[in-house]
Protein backbone atom coordinates (compact mmCIF):
# COMPACT_ATOMS: atom_id res chain seq x y z
CA UNK A 1 0.00 0.00 0.00
CA UNK A 2 1.63 3.22 -1.04
CA UNK A 3 0.31 6.58 0.05
CA UNK A 4 -0.52 9.39 -2.33
CA UNK A 5 1.63 12.47 -2.25
CA UNK A 6 -1.21 14.99 -2.48
CA UNK A 7 -3.24 13.56 0.36
CA UNK A 8 -1.05 15.07 3.02
CA UNK A 9 -0.54 18.48 4.48
CA UNK A 10 2.92 20.00 4.70
CA UNK A 11 4.49 22.74 6.72
CA UNK A 12 4.19 25.30 3.90
CA UNK A 13 0.53 24.64 3.16
CA UNK A 14 -2.31 26.81 4.44
CA UNK A 15 -3.88 25.40 7.55
CA UNK A 16 -7.45 26.10 8.50
CA UNK A 17 -7.88 27.73 11.89
CA UNK A 18 -4.33 28.90 12.43
CA UNK A 19 -5.45 32.34 11.44
CA UNK A 20 -7.70 32.73 14.44
CA UNK A 21 -4.75 31.84 16.66
CA UNK A 22 -2.52 34.31 14.86
CA UNK A 23 -5.15 37.06 15.19
CA UNK A 24 -5.49 36.46 18.90
CA UNK A 25 -1.75 36.44 19.40
CA UNK A 26 -1.27 39.70 17.52
CA UNK A 27 -4.19 41.34 19.29
CA UNK A 28 -2.95 40.22 22.71
CA UNK A 29 0.41 41.74 21.88
CA UNK A 30 -1.24 44.88 20.57
CA UNK A 31 -3.08 45.33 23.86
CA UNK A 32 0.29 45.15 25.52
CA UNK A 33 1.65 47.94 23.38
CA UNK A 34 3.42 45.89 20.69
CA UNK A 35 3.12 47.08 17.13
CA UNK A 36 1.39 44.36 15.01
CA UNK A 37 3.84 45.00 12.18
CA UNK A 38 6.70 44.04 14.44
CA UNK A 39 5.15 40.63 15.08
CA UNK A 40 4.15 40.11 11.46
CA UNK A 41 7.59 40.97 10.13
CA UNK A 42 8.74 38.33 7.66
CA UNK A 43 5.46 36.41 7.72
CA UNK A 44 4.25 38.01 4.47
CA UNK A 45 1.07 38.85 6.33
CA UNK A 46 -0.47 42.21 6.97
CA UNK A 47 -2.63 43.18 9.89
CA UNK A 48 -5.37 44.14 7.44
CA UNK A 49 -5.35 40.59 6.01
CA UNK A 50 -6.85 39.33 9.23
CA UNK A 51 -10.26 40.67 8.35
CA UNK A 52 -10.47 38.60 5.18
CA UNK A 53 -10.10 35.17 6.73
CA UNK A 54 -7.26 34.04 4.52
CA UNK A 55 -5.67 30.89 5.90
CA UNK A 56 -2.06 31.00 6.95
CA UNK A 57 0.52 28.23 6.84
CA UNK A 58 2.34 26.54 9.70
CA UNK A 59 5.53 28.18 8.48
CA UNK A 60 3.97 31.61 8.78
CA UNK A 61 2.64 30.80 12.23
CA UNK A 62 6.07 29.60 13.33
CA UNK A 63 7.59 32.78 12.01
CA UNK A 64 5.10 34.73 14.09
CA UNK A 65 6.19 32.77 17.16
CA UNK A 66 9.80 33.46 16.27
CA UNK A 67 9.04 37.19 16.30
CA UNK A 68 7.17 36.72 19.54
CA UNK A 69 10.26 35.20 21.06
CA UNK A 70 12.15 38.43 20.36
CA UNK A 71 9.94 40.30 22.83
CA UNK A 72 11.78 39.78 26.07
CA UNK A 73 9.16 41.41 28.23
CA UNK A 74 6.22 39.46 26.83
CA UNK A 75 6.71 35.91 27.98
CA UNK A 76 3.06 35.50 28.89
CA UNK A 77 1.80 35.77 25.32
CA UNK A 78 2.15 32.07 24.48
CA UNK A 79 0.41 31.11 27.72
CA UNK A 80 -2.40 33.58 27.13
CA UNK A 81 -2.88 32.30 23.59
CA UNK A 82 -2.91 28.73 24.88
CA UNK A 83 -5.86 29.46 27.13
CA UNK A 84 -7.78 30.79 24.13
CA UNK A 85 -7.20 28.10 21.53
CA UNK A 86 -10.83 27.04 21.53
CA UNK A 87 -12.16 30.48 20.64
CA UNK A 88 -13.65 30.35 17.21
CA UNK A 89 -13.14 26.59 17.00
CA UNK A 90 -15.91 24.12 16.11
CA UNK A 91 -14.70 21.89 18.94
CA UNK A 92 -15.69 24.45 21.57
CA UNK A 93 -19.17 23.15 22.36
CA UNK A 94 -17.98 19.55 22.55
CA UNK A 95 -15.43 20.65 25.13
CA UNK A 96 -18.07 22.55 27.05
CA UNK A 97 -20.47 19.59 27.28
CA UNK A 98 -18.11 16.63 27.57
CA UNK A 99 -18.92 14.17 30.34
CA UNK A 100 -15.32 13.55 31.28
CA UNK A 101 -11.83 14.42 30.18
CA UNK A 102 -11.54 11.02 28.50
CA UNK A 103 -14.20 12.15 26.02
CA UNK A 104 -11.97 15.00 25.03
CA UNK A 105 -8.99 12.81 24.30
CA UNK A 106 -10.78 11.25 21.35
CA UNK A 107 -11.64 14.68 19.99
CA UNK A 108 -8.10 15.95 20.11
CA UNK A 109 -6.61 12.80 18.63
CA UNK A 110 -9.29 11.94 16.07
CA UNK A 111 -10.76 15.27 15.05
CA UNK A 112 -7.90 17.77 15.23
CA UNK A 113 -9.91 20.60 13.71
CA UNK A 114 -8.70 24.14 13.08
CA UNK A 115 -5.10 24.09 14.06
CA UNK A 116 -5.13 21.23 16.53
CA UNK A 117 -3.46 19.04 13.92
CA UNK A 118 -0.33 20.95 14.93
CA UNK A 119 -0.14 18.65 17.90
CA UNK A 120 -0.04 14.90 17.94
CA UNK A 121 -0.89 13.33 21.27
CA UNK A 122 -0.17 9.72 21.98
CA UNK A 123 -2.01 8.22 24.88
CA UNK A 124 -0.52 5.70 27.34
CA UNK A 125 -1.77 4.31 30.58
CA UNK A 126 0.39 3.06 33.39
CA UNK A 127 -0.41 2.36 37.04
CA UNK A 128 -3.27 4.71 37.62
CA UNK A 129 -2.01 7.57 35.52
CA UNK A 130 -2.76 8.60 31.97
CA UNK A 131 0.20 9.86 29.98
CA UNK A 132 0.12 11.95 26.85
CA UNK A 133 3.28 12.13 24.81
CA UNK A 134 3.00 15.16 22.61
CA UNK A 135 4.75 15.69 19.34
CA UNK A 136 4.60 18.69 17.08
CA UNK A 137 3.18 17.04 13.97
CA UNK A 138 4.91 19.45 11.63
CA UNK A 139 8.13 19.61 13.63
CA UNK A 140 9.44 23.04 14.59
CA UNK A 141 11.58 25.58 12.79
CA UNK A 142 13.85 26.19 15.78
CA UNK A 143 14.22 25.13 19.43
CA UNK A 144 12.68 28.43 20.55
CA UNK A 145 9.63 27.91 18.37
CA UNK A 146 9.32 24.38 19.73
CA UNK A 147 9.41 25.79 23.23
CA UNK A 148 6.74 28.40 22.53
CA UNK A 149 4.52 25.83 20.83
CA UNK A 150 4.89 23.52 23.83
CA UNK A 151 3.96 26.43 26.10
CA UNK A 152 0.86 27.10 24.03
CA UNK A 153 -0.30 23.49 24.23
CA UNK A 154 0.56 23.08 27.91
CA UNK A 155 -1.33 26.23 28.77
CA UNK A 156 -4.25 25.00 26.67
CA UNK A 157 -4.43 21.74 28.62
CA UNK A 158 -4.06 23.52 31.96
CA UNK A 159 -6.82 25.97 31.06
CA UNK A 160 -9.15 23.19 29.89
CA UNK A 161 -8.61 21.20 33.08
CA UNK A 162 -9.12 24.27 35.23
CA UNK A 163 -12.29 25.09 33.33
CA UNK A 164 -13.78 21.60 33.40
CA UNK A 165 -12.55 20.00 36.61
CA UNK A 166 -11.55 22.96 38.74
CA UNK A 167 -8.53 23.73 40.82
CA UNK A 168 -7.34 20.30 41.84
CA UNK A 169 -6.41 19.14 38.39
CA UNK A 170 -3.22 17.50 39.64
CA UNK A 171 -1.49 17.59 36.28
CA UNK A 172 2.18 17.01 35.70
CA UNK A 173 4.11 18.43 32.80
CA UNK A 174 7.51 17.48 31.54
CA UNK A 175 9.26 19.63 28.97
CA UNK A 176 12.10 18.60 26.69
CA UNK A 177 14.13 21.77 27.26
CA UNK A 178 16.07 23.40 30.08
CA UNK A 179 14.34 25.49 32.73
CA UNK A 180 13.71 28.93 31.22
CA UNK A 181 14.37 32.18 33.06
CA UNK A 182 10.70 33.12 33.11
CA UNK A 183 9.72 30.18 35.29
CA UNK A 184 7.04 32.36 36.94
CA UNK A 185 4.91 32.06 33.81
CA UNK A 186 4.97 28.28 34.08
CA UNK A 187 4.13 28.36 37.78
CA UNK A 188 1.21 30.72 37.61
CA UNK A 189 -0.28 29.70 34.28
CA UNK A 190 0.03 25.94 34.59
CA UNK A 191 -0.30 25.63 38.39
CA UNK A 192 0.99 22.09 38.26
CA UNK A 193 3.97 19.89 38.84
CA UNK A 194 6.55 20.90 36.24
CA UNK A 195 9.80 19.24 35.22
CA UNK A 196 12.34 20.57 32.74
CA UNK A 197 15.20 19.03 30.77
CA UNK A 198 13.21 15.86 30.20
CA UNK A 199 13.49 13.60 27.19
CA UNK A 200 9.98 14.25 25.92
CA UNK A 201 7.07 16.65 26.11
CA UNK A 202 4.58 14.80 28.24
CA UNK A 203 1.49 15.62 30.25
CA UNK A 204 0.01 13.24 32.76
CA UNK A 205 -3.07 13.11 34.93
CA UNK A 206 -4.33 10.58 37.47
CA UNK A 207 -7.11 8.34 36.20
CA UNK A 208 -9.52 9.32 38.94
CA UNK A 209 -9.71 12.84 37.56
CA UNK A 210 -9.33 11.71 33.99
CA UNK A 211 -12.47 9.60 34.20
CA UNK A 212 -14.28 11.82 36.69
CA UNK A 213 -17.81 12.54 35.66
CA UNK A 214 -18.12 16.26 35.13
CA UNK A 215 -21.05 17.81 36.90
CA UNK A 216 -21.87 20.28 34.18
CA UNK A 217 -21.42 17.75 31.40
CA UNK A 218 -24.43 16.95 29.32
CA UNK A 219 -24.42 13.66 27.39
CA UNK A 220 -27.09 14.73 24.92
CA UNK A 221 -25.63 18.11 24.14
CA UNK A 222 -22.25 16.44 23.80
CA UNK A 223 -23.65 13.99 21.26
CA UNK A 224 -25.30 16.82 19.38
CA UNK A 225 -22.13 18.83 19.18
CA UNK A 226 -20.25 15.70 18.12
CA UNK A 227 -22.61 15.21 15.22
CA UNK A 228 -22.06 18.85 14.26
CA UNK A 229 -18.31 18.32 14.34
CA UNK A 230 -18.74 15.48 11.86
CA UNK A 231 -19.90 17.97 9.23
CA UNK A 232 -16.51 19.60 9.26
CA UNK A 233 -14.04 18.21 6.85
CA UNK A 234 -11.11 16.76 8.72
CA UNK A 235 -7.78 18.34 7.85
CA UNK A 236 -5.50 16.28 5.65
CA UNK A 237 -3.14 13.96 7.48
CA UNK A 238 0.13 15.58 8.41
CA UNK A 239 2.85 14.13 6.22
CA UNK A 240 5.66 14.32 8.78
CA UNK A 241 3.51 12.69 11.44
CA UNK A 242 2.53 9.91 9.01
CA UNK A 243 6.19 9.32 8.25
CA UNK A 244 6.87 9.16 11.97
CA UNK A 245 4.04 6.71 12.54
CA UNK A 246 5.17 4.54 9.66
CA UNK A 247 8.77 4.52 10.86
CA UNK A 248 7.58 3.49 14.28
CA UNK A 249 5.75 0.50 12.83
CA UNK A 250 8.83 -0.83 11.03
CA UNK A 251 11.62 -2.93 12.44
CA UNK A 252 14.57 -1.68 10.54
CA UNK A 253 13.43 1.04 8.19
CA UNK A 254 15.54 2.06 5.22
CA UNK A 255 15.27 5.39 3.47
CA UNK A 256 14.51 3.67 0.14
CA UNK A 257 11.71 1.60 1.54
CA UNK A 258 10.05 4.51 3.33
CA UNK A 259 10.23 6.94 0.42
CA UNK A 260 8.87 4.20 -1.80
CA UNK A 261 5.99 3.73 0.60
CA UNK A 262 5.19 7.43 0.37
CA UNK A 263 5.36 7.27 -3.41
CA UNK A 264 8.30 9.60 -3.96
CA UNK A 265 11.97 9.29 -4.88
CA UNK A 266 14.53 9.29 -2.08
CA UNK A 267 15.72 12.73 -3.21
CA UNK A 268 12.23 14.22 -2.98
CA UNK A 269 11.72 12.49 0.33
CA UNK A 270 14.91 13.98 1.71
CA UNK A 271 13.95 17.41 0.41
CA UNK A 272 10.56 17.17 2.09
CA UNK A 273 12.21 16.23 5.37
CA UNK A 274 14.58 19.16 5.05
CA UNK A 275 11.63 21.45 4.49
CA UNK A 276 10.35 20.23 7.86
CA UNK A 277 13.70 21.05 9.48
CA UNK A 278 14.79 17.48 10.02
CA UNK A 279 16.45 14.55 8.25
CA UNK A 280 15.98 10.81 8.12
CA UNK A 281 18.37 9.72 10.83
CA UNK A 282 17.44 12.58 13.18
CA UNK A 283 13.79 11.70 12.84
CA UNK A 284 14.50 8.04 13.48
CA UNK A 285 16.66 8.90 16.48
CA UNK A 286 13.98 11.11 17.99
CA UNK A 287 11.41 8.34 17.66
CA UNK A 288 13.63 5.79 19.39
CA UNK A 289 14.69 8.33 21.97
CA UNK A 290 11.10 9.04 22.97
CA UNK A 291 10.18 5.40 23.06
CA UNK A 292 13.22 4.39 25.08
CA UNK A 293 12.97 7.32 27.48
CA UNK A 294 9.30 6.68 28.18
CA UNK A 295 9.89 2.97 28.72
CA UNK A 296 12.78 3.58 31.05
CA UNK A 297 11.50 6.50 33.12
CA UNK A 298 7.75 5.95 33.32
CA UNK A 299 7.34 2.23 32.75
CA UNK A 300 10.60 1.52 34.60
CA UNK A 301 11.59 -1.26 32.24
CA UNK A 302 15.04 -2.83 32.19
CA UNK A 303 17.60 -2.12 29.51
CA UNK A 304 17.24 -5.63 28.13
CA UNK A 305 13.50 -5.29 27.69
CA UNK A 306 13.73 -1.91 26.00
CA UNK A 307 16.58 -3.07 23.80
CA UNK A 308 14.68 -6.10 22.56
CA UNK A 309 11.58 -3.99 22.00
CA UNK A 310 13.57 -1.65 19.81
CA UNK A 311 15.21 -4.59 18.01
CA UNK A 312 18.70 -4.18 19.32
CA UNK A 313 20.75 -7.35 19.26
CA UNK A 314 22.32 -6.74 22.67
CA UNK A 315 22.05 -4.20 25.44
CA UNK A 316 25.57 -2.84 24.94
CA UNK A 317 24.59 -1.69 21.50
CA UNK A 318 21.43 -0.23 22.92
CA UNK A 319 23.32 1.68 25.60
CA UNK A 320 25.60 3.19 22.99
CA UNK A 321 22.67 4.25 20.83
CA UNK A 322 20.81 5.62 23.83
CA UNK A 323 23.78 7.75 24.71
CA UNK A 324 23.73 9.15 21.19
CA UNK A 325 20.03 10.01 21.37
CA UNK A 326 19.89 11.53 24.82
CA UNK A 327 23.44 12.42 25.78
CA UNK A 328 23.29 10.09 28.79
CA UNK A 329 23.25 6.39 29.50
CA UNK A 330 20.02 4.63 30.50
CA UNK A 331 21.22 4.24 34.08
CA UNK A 332 22.13 7.92 34.28
CA UNK A 333 18.60 8.74 33.22
CA UNK A 334 17.20 6.39 35.86
CA UNK A 335 19.54 7.68 38.51
CA UNK A 336 18.73 11.30 37.64
CA UNK A 337 15.08 10.47 38.06
CA UNK A 338 15.53 9.02 41.52
CA UNK A 339 17.77 11.91 42.43
CA UNK A 340 15.21 14.57 41.54
CA UNK A 341 12.38 12.74 43.27
CA UNK A 342 14.50 12.50 46.42
CA UNK A 343 15.24 16.18 46.23
CA UNK A 344 11.61 17.11 45.93
CA UNK A 345 10.77 15.02 48.98
CA UNK A 346 13.26 16.70 51.27
Amino acid sequence: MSAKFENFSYIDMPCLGLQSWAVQLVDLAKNRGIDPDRLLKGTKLFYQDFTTGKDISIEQFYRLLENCNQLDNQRELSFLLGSKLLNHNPLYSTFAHANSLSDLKKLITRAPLNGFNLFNAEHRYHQGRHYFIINLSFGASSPKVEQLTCEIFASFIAAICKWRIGKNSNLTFSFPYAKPKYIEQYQTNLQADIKFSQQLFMISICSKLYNKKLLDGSPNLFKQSLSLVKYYQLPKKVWLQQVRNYLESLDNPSLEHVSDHFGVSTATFKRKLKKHNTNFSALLDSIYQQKAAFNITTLEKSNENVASELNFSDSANFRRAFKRWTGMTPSQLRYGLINTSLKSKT
Partner: protein
Amino acid sequence: MVILIITWVTTFILTLSYGDYKSANNIDWFNVAGEGSITIITQLWIIFVLLSRPKGRVTTLLFTGFLIMNLSVTLDFIDEFVRYNEEHSWFDKIESIPTPFGMVLMTLALYYWHQEQMNINLQLKSRERFYREHQLHDVISGLANADYMKRQISNELSLLVNNDQYVFSLIMLDIAQFNQFNRQFGDNEGDKLLNKFAHLICDNLRDQDLVCRYASDCFIIMLPNTELEEAEKINELLIDTLEGFSFKVCKNGRLISKQKVHTSIITTSKSEASSSDKLLRELHCRLLNSKRAFGQVK
Protein backbone atom coordinates in the same frame (compact mmCIF):
# COMPACT_ATOMS: atom_id res chain seq x y z
CA MET B 1 7.99 71.63 16.58
CA VAL B 2 6.57 74.43 14.42
CA ILE B 3 8.64 76.98 16.32
CA LEU B 4 11.70 74.86 15.75
CA ILE B 5 11.25 74.75 12.00
CA ILE B 6 10.41 78.46 11.74
CA THR B 7 13.53 79.55 13.65
CA TRP B 8 15.63 77.25 11.58
CA VAL B 9 14.33 78.47 8.23
CA THR B 10 14.60 82.15 9.20
CA THR B 11 18.22 81.79 10.30
CA PHE B 12 19.04 80.14 7.01
CA ILE B 13 17.30 82.77 4.93
CA LEU B 14 18.77 85.67 6.89
CA THR B 15 22.33 84.45 6.84
CA LEU B 16 22.28 83.29 3.27
CA SER B 17 20.76 86.53 2.00
CA TYR B 18 23.28 88.74 3.79
CA GLY B 19 26.42 86.80 3.03
CA ASP B 20 28.46 85.71 0.04
CA TYR B 21 29.09 82.10 -0.65
CA LYS B 22 32.62 80.85 -0.20
CA SER B 23 34.17 78.98 -3.09
CA ALA B 24 34.50 75.24 -2.63
CA ASN B 25 38.26 75.21 -2.03
CA ASN B 26 37.91 77.82 0.72
CA ILE B 27 35.73 75.53 2.78
CA ASP B 28 37.32 73.68 5.68
CA TRP B 29 35.55 70.32 5.47
CA PHE B 30 36.90 69.19 8.83
CA ASN B 31 35.10 72.04 10.53
CA VAL B 32 31.98 71.39 8.48
CA ALA B 33 31.80 67.79 9.63
CA GLY B 34 32.38 68.71 13.28
CA GLU B 35 30.01 71.63 13.49
CA GLY B 36 27.45 69.94 11.26
CA SER B 37 27.20 66.94 13.52
CA ILE B 38 26.83 69.16 16.60
CA THR B 39 23.97 70.97 14.87
CA ILE B 40 22.20 67.75 13.96
CA ILE B 41 22.66 66.19 17.38
CA THR B 42 21.33 69.23 19.27
CA GLN B 43 18.32 69.12 16.96
CA LEU B 44 17.82 65.43 17.84
CA TRP B 45 17.95 66.36 21.52
CA ILE B 46 15.25 68.94 21.01
CA ILE B 47 13.06 66.39 19.27
CA PHE B 48 13.52 63.84 22.07
CA VAL B 49 12.65 66.46 24.68
CA LEU B 50 9.51 67.42 22.80
CA LEU B 51 8.45 63.80 22.28
CA SER B 52 9.06 62.51 25.76
CA ARG B 53 7.94 65.29 28.06
CA PRO B 54 4.45 66.50 28.83
CA LYS B 55 3.83 70.23 28.37
CA GLY B 56 4.74 72.46 31.27
CA ARG B 57 7.26 74.91 32.67
CA VAL B 58 10.19 72.51 32.65
CA THR B 59 9.59 71.48 29.06
CA THR B 60 9.26 75.06 27.85
CA LEU B 61 12.47 76.08 29.57
CA LEU B 62 14.36 73.08 28.26
CA PHE B 63 13.08 73.66 24.79
CA THR B 64 13.95 77.35 24.76
CA GLY B 65 17.42 76.68 26.13
CA PHE B 66 18.12 74.00 23.57
CA LEU B 67 16.71 76.14 20.78
CA ILE B 68 18.97 79.07 21.59
CA MET B 69 22.00 76.81 21.78
CA ASN B 70 21.02 75.20 18.54
CA LEU B 71 20.66 78.62 16.90
CA SER B 72 24.16 79.56 17.89
CA VAL B 73 25.58 76.27 16.67
CA THR B 74 23.71 76.56 13.39
CA LEU B 75 25.08 80.06 12.81
CA ASP B 76 28.54 78.72 13.41
CA PHE B 77 27.88 75.95 10.93
CA ILE B 78 26.58 78.22 8.17
CA ASP B 79 29.58 80.39 8.79
CA GLU B 80 31.65 77.73 7.11
CA PHE B 81 29.92 78.31 3.80
CA VAL B 82 29.20 81.99 3.92
CA ARG B 83 31.34 85.11 4.29
CA TYR B 84 29.59 88.27 5.46
CA ASN B 85 30.08 91.73 3.95
CA GLU B 86 31.59 94.61 5.90
CA GLU B 87 28.19 96.05 6.80
CA HIS B 88 26.92 92.70 8.09
CA SER B 89 30.05 91.68 9.89
CA TRP B 90 28.18 91.94 13.23
CA PHE B 91 26.71 88.58 12.30
CA ASP B 92 30.10 87.02 12.90
CA LYS B 93 30.30 88.56 16.33
CA ILE B 94 26.88 87.63 17.65
CA GLU B 95 27.06 83.97 16.82
CA SER B 96 28.56 83.01 20.15
CA ILE B 97 26.42 85.33 22.30
CA PRO B 98 23.25 83.14 22.48
CA THR B 99 25.10 80.11 23.90
CA PRO B 100 25.49 81.32 27.49
CA PHE B 101 21.85 82.45 27.60
CA GLY B 102 20.72 79.07 26.37
CA MET B 103 22.90 77.31 28.91
CA VAL B 104 21.54 79.39 31.77
CA LEU B 105 18.00 78.60 30.72
CA MET B 106 18.80 74.90 30.49
CA THR B 107 20.41 74.87 33.90
CA LEU B 108 17.30 76.45 35.32
CA ALA B 109 15.21 73.85 33.54
CA LEU B 110 17.30 71.00 34.92
CA TYR B 111 16.94 72.42 38.41
CA TYR B 112 13.14 72.41 38.08
CA TRP B 113 13.30 68.96 36.54
CA HIS B 114 15.18 67.74 39.57
CA GLN B 115 12.44 69.05 41.84
CA GLU B 116 9.76 67.50 39.67
CA GLN B 117 11.60 64.16 39.66
CA MET B 118 11.92 64.14 43.45
CA ASN B 119 8.18 64.54 43.55
CA ILE B 120 7.59 61.69 41.10
CA ASN B 121 10.08 59.46 42.90
CA LEU B 122 8.07 59.87 46.05
CA GLN B 123 5.02 58.55 44.23
CA LEU B 124 6.96 55.70 42.63
CA LYS B 125 8.67 54.58 45.78
CA SER B 126 6.87 51.32 46.39
CA ARG B 127 7.09 50.44 42.73
CA GLU B 128 10.77 50.59 42.12
CA ARG B 129 12.89 50.80 45.26
CA PHE B 130 16.49 52.04 44.73
CA TYR B 131 16.89 51.49 41.00
CA ARG B 132 15.16 52.51 37.86
CA GLU B 133 15.34 50.20 34.88
CA HIS B 134 12.64 50.88 32.37
CA GLN B 135 13.05 47.57 30.53
CA LEU B 136 12.03 45.74 33.66
CA HIS B 137 8.55 47.18 33.74
CA ASP B 138 5.31 45.42 33.11
CA VAL B 139 3.02 47.20 30.67
CA ILE B 140 -0.29 46.06 32.08
CA SER B 141 0.13 46.93 35.72
CA GLY B 142 2.82 49.60 35.50
CA LEU B 143 4.75 47.68 38.15
CA ALA B 144 8.16 46.08 38.03
CA ASN B 145 8.22 42.59 36.51
CA ALA B 146 9.36 39.26 37.91
CA ASP B 147 12.95 39.69 36.77
CA TYR B 148 13.33 42.85 38.78
CA MET B 149 11.79 41.21 41.83
CA LYS B 150 14.18 38.27 41.56
CA ARG B 151 17.13 40.68 41.56
CA GLN B 152 15.76 42.51 44.57
CA ILE B 153 15.22 39.27 46.44
CA SER B 154 18.79 38.19 45.73
CA ASN B 155 19.81 41.59 47.04
CA GLU B 156 17.92 41.03 50.27
CA LEU B 157 19.36 37.53 50.55
CA SER B 158 22.85 38.96 50.39
CA LEU B 159 21.94 41.25 53.29
CA LEU B 160 21.00 38.19 55.32
CA VAL B 161 24.46 36.71 55.02
CA ASN B 162 26.11 39.49 56.99
CA ASN B 163 23.40 40.06 59.51
CA ASP B 164 21.97 37.59 62.01
CA GLN B 165 19.13 39.86 63.03
CA TYR B 166 17.86 40.68 59.59
CA VAL B 167 14.64 39.10 58.29
CA PHE B 168 12.47 39.92 55.34
CA SER B 169 9.08 38.66 54.22
CA LEU B 170 7.45 38.00 50.90
CA ILE B 171 3.75 37.93 50.18
CA MET B 172 2.36 36.29 47.07
CA LEU B 173 -1.12 37.29 46.08
CA ASP B 174 -3.42 35.87 43.47
CA ILE B 175 -6.87 36.94 42.32
CA ALA B 176 -9.46 34.21 42.75
CA GLN B 177 -11.49 33.22 39.70
CA PHE B 178 -9.56 35.61 37.52
CA ASN B 179 -9.95 33.32 34.49
CA GLN B 180 -13.67 33.40 34.93
CA PHE B 181 -13.60 37.18 35.19
CA ASN B 182 -11.66 37.30 31.92
CA ARG B 183 -14.08 34.97 30.21
CA GLN B 184 -17.04 37.00 31.37
CA PHE B 185 -15.84 40.52 30.69
CA GLY B 186 -12.99 40.11 28.23
CA ASP B 187 -9.26 40.45 28.52
CA ASN B 188 -9.22 44.21 28.36
CA GLU B 189 -11.32 44.48 31.48
CA GLY B 190 -9.13 41.83 33.08
CA ASP B 191 -6.06 43.92 32.33
CA LYS B 192 -7.77 46.95 33.83
CA LEU B 193 -8.58 45.00 36.96
CA LEU B 194 -4.92 44.03 37.27
CA ASN B 195 -3.96 47.66 36.88
CA LYS B 196 -6.41 48.80 39.57
CA PHE B 197 -5.20 46.11 41.93
CA ALA B 198 -1.63 47.17 41.29
CA HIS B 199 -2.49 50.74 42.31
CA LEU B 200 -4.39 49.58 45.36
CA ILE B 201 -1.54 47.39 46.54
CA CYS B 202 0.94 50.24 46.05
CA ASP B 203 -1.18 52.65 48.02
CA ASN B 204 -1.52 50.27 50.92
CA LEU B 205 2.14 49.51 51.50
CA ARG B 206 4.83 51.21 53.50
CA ASP B 207 7.56 53.27 51.86
CA GLN B 208 10.22 50.58 51.96
CA ASP B 209 8.08 47.82 50.43
CA LEU B 210 8.21 46.76 46.81
CA VAL B 211 5.46 45.22 44.74
CA CYS B 212 5.71 43.59 41.33
CA ARG B 213 3.49 41.62 39.00
CA TYR B 214 4.93 38.11 38.98
CA ALA B 215 2.97 36.63 36.09
CA SER B 216 -0.63 36.45 35.01
CA ASP B 217 -2.84 37.44 37.98
CA CYS B 218 -0.15 36.91 40.56
CA PHE B 219 1.58 39.71 42.50
CA ILE B 220 4.55 39.59 44.82
CA ILE B 221 5.18 42.00 47.64
CA MET B 222 8.53 42.26 49.33
CA LEU B 223 8.62 43.51 52.89
CA PRO B 224 12.23 44.22 53.85
CA ASN B 225 13.19 44.08 57.49
CA THR B 226 9.83 42.63 58.47
CA GLU B 227 8.99 39.82 60.87
CA LEU B 228 6.28 37.30 60.13
CA GLU B 229 3.89 38.83 62.63
CA GLU B 230 4.03 42.23 61.01
CA ALA B 231 3.84 40.73 57.54
CA GLU B 232 0.66 38.93 58.50
CA LYS B 233 -0.84 42.17 59.72
CA ILE B 234 0.03 43.91 56.47
CA ASN B 235 -1.33 40.96 54.52
CA GLU B 236 -4.61 41.09 56.40
CA LEU B 237 -5.06 44.81 55.80
CA LEU B 238 -4.23 44.31 52.15
CA ILE B 239 -6.80 41.56 51.70
CA ASP B 240 -9.41 43.73 53.39
CA THR B 241 -8.69 46.58 51.02
CA LEU B 242 -8.65 44.46 47.88
CA GLU B 243 -11.77 42.50 48.68
CA GLY B 244 -13.61 45.64 49.66
CA PHE B 245 -12.79 47.30 46.36
CA SER B 246 -15.48 47.52 43.72
CA PHE B 247 -14.47 47.50 40.09
CA LYS B 248 -16.52 49.25 37.44
CA VAL B 249 -16.85 47.27 34.23
CA CYS B 250 -16.72 49.67 31.30
CA LYS B 251 -19.24 48.04 29.02
CA ASN B 252 -22.34 48.31 31.16
CA GLY B 253 -21.11 50.36 34.06
CA ARG B 254 -21.71 47.42 36.37
CA LEU B 255 -19.90 47.29 39.67
CA ILE B 256 -18.08 44.09 40.51
CA SER B 257 -17.27 43.83 44.16
CA LYS B 258 -15.85 41.33 46.62
CA GLN B 259 -13.26 39.97 44.22
CA LYS B 260 -11.62 37.34 46.42
CA VAL B 261 -7.86 37.06 46.66
CA HIS B 262 -5.58 34.32 47.92
CA THR B 263 -2.28 35.02 49.58
CA SER B 264 0.70 33.20 50.96
CA ILE B 265 3.49 34.55 53.16
CA ILE B 266 7.07 33.50 53.66
CA THR B 267 9.57 34.98 56.09
CA THR B 268 13.27 34.38 55.70
CA SER B 269 16.11 34.87 58.11
CA LYS B 270 19.76 33.90 57.97
CA SER B 271 19.26 30.33 59.15
CA GLU B 272 16.99 29.44 56.26
CA ALA B 273 18.49 31.58 53.55
CA SER B 274 18.40 29.96 50.11
CA SER B 275 18.12 31.17 46.53
CA SER B 276 15.46 33.49 45.18
CA ASP B 277 14.26 30.73 42.85
CA LYS B 278 13.71 28.35 45.74
CA LEU B 279 11.94 30.98 47.81
CA LEU B 280 9.58 31.80 44.99
CA ARG B 281 8.83 28.16 44.28
CA GLU B 282 8.07 27.55 47.95
CA LEU B 283 5.88 30.64 48.04
CA HIS B 284 3.97 29.49 44.99
CA CYS B 285 3.48 26.00 46.43
CA ARG B 286 1.99 27.49 49.58
CA LEU B 287 -0.29 29.67 47.50
CA LEU B 288 -1.54 26.65 45.54
CA ASN B 289 -2.16 24.76 48.76
CA SER B 290 -4.12 27.59 50.28
CA LYS B 291 -6.19 27.86 47.10
CA ARG B 292 -6.93 24.15 47.18
CA ALA B 293 -7.87 24.31 50.84
CA PHE B 294 -10.16 27.22 50.08
CA GLY B 295 -11.78 25.25 47.24
CA GLN B 296 -12.46 22.31 49.53
CA VAL B 297 -14.02 24.45 52.24
CA LYS B 298 -16.33 25.92 49.66
